[in-house]
């Protein structure tokens, strides 16, 4: 049945109103503006990258520091002959001279029967660990550790001074304790800031070759004492 619509009854009728439409000019302008914003945002990291090299390189520095400590035995260069050795811990004990240490590394020297050529990566020498902790405790010379770890470098004529905190921890997160000295086995560097700076942290799983008088023993595989070396770097 067909209904007759009365005068002024517009129900059911879609009325086209051109004034309600968004104008093409506005659409075009807002699109171009949006494109501009998007391009600007996507380019911002690249725009500031040359100025931010100092701030963005902390992670590689932490990685490098952990590699030096875990996979290298260190370098000691005899001043008189120029020959080098990785037994820096013995020579600083004999000579009390830290200047000849060119690099600090904690990997233990390879045993005679070992197929490793120089050092055993991931197996830290207790003698080197103790020597590094003693070095840190020697307040007159502790500032030299930063240089020997490669944490004081010059980039584009600017001196970059990284700060560090290096500890040996058990897998439950507590510091490994040396019951002979009643102190942490290895805990060197500055206190880690709670806020305000970016701190990069790298953890390495390591073995300690001589675990006498150490707490929190964890045996993994054939390794009698496994632990974590925690390296924190910031500026």
């Amino acid at each position, binding site marked *: 049945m067909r209904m007759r619509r009365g005068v002024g009854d517009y129900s059911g009728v879609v009325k086209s109103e051109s004034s309600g439409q968004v104008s093409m000019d506005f659409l075009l302008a807002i699109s171009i503006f949006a494109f501009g914003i998007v391009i600007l945002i996507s380019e911002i990291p690249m725009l500031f990258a040359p100025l931010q090299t100092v701030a963005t390189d902390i*992670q590689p520095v932490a990685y490098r520091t952990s590699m030096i400590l875990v996979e290298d035995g260190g370098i000691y260069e005899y001043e008189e002959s120029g020959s080098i050795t990785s037994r820096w811990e013995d020579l600083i004990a004999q000579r009390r001279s830290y200047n000849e240490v060119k690099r600090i590394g904690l990997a233990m020297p390879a045993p005679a029967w070992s197929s490793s050529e120089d050092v055993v990566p*991931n197996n830290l020498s207790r003698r080197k660990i103790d020597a590094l902790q003693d070095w840190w405790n020697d307040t007159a010379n502790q500032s030299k550790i930063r240089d020997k770890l490669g944490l004081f470098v010059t980039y584009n004529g600017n001196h970059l001074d990284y700060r560090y905190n290096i500890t040996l921890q058990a897998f439950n997160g507590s510091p490994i304790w040396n019951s002979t000295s009643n102190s942490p086995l290895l805990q060197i560097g500055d206190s880690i800031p709670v806020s305000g700076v970016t701190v990069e942290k790298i953890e390495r799983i390591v073995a300690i070759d001589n675990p006498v008088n150490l707490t929190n023993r964890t045996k993994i595989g054939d390794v009698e004492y496994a632990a974590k070396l925690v390296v924190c770097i910031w500026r």
Partner: protein
Amino acid sequence: MMKTNKKGQMHTIEALLALMLIIGVVAFTARSAPGETQVEGSMDTQLALYGNDFLSILDMEQPDHKSWLYYFVETNNITGFKQEWEKTNLTDKKGIFYKLELYNGCDLQNFSAPYGEPPENAVTVSRLVTLVNPHVEVYEVRLTLWYV
């Protein structure tokens, strides 16, 4: 005779153009978003270090020139690996899961996936183990790690 409204056609064209512009902006924005943040890269580095270090510890050479990993491959003792892994507390404290695979050449010999299949952003590290008794056989121990 049918009467057409030219103004209505224009509105349709405007709507289509606006839609195309909006889609273009959204597509461009999505494409411009960085694929991997620095934090993710840092996490991948840490995962790779955990994996390589753990395999290195298990493969620590003994005076008989063999290691725990050597006997693990020789005996195919997959369950023993989980016990050693759990000692690191990496699953309990850091939420790191693993999948272990043992390959001889290209052939999968055995595997252990106690935490299921890894996601796409998992990190895989591997270590070669050479068995010398009675024949020389090279195995690849492949460890895939990921954060939950």
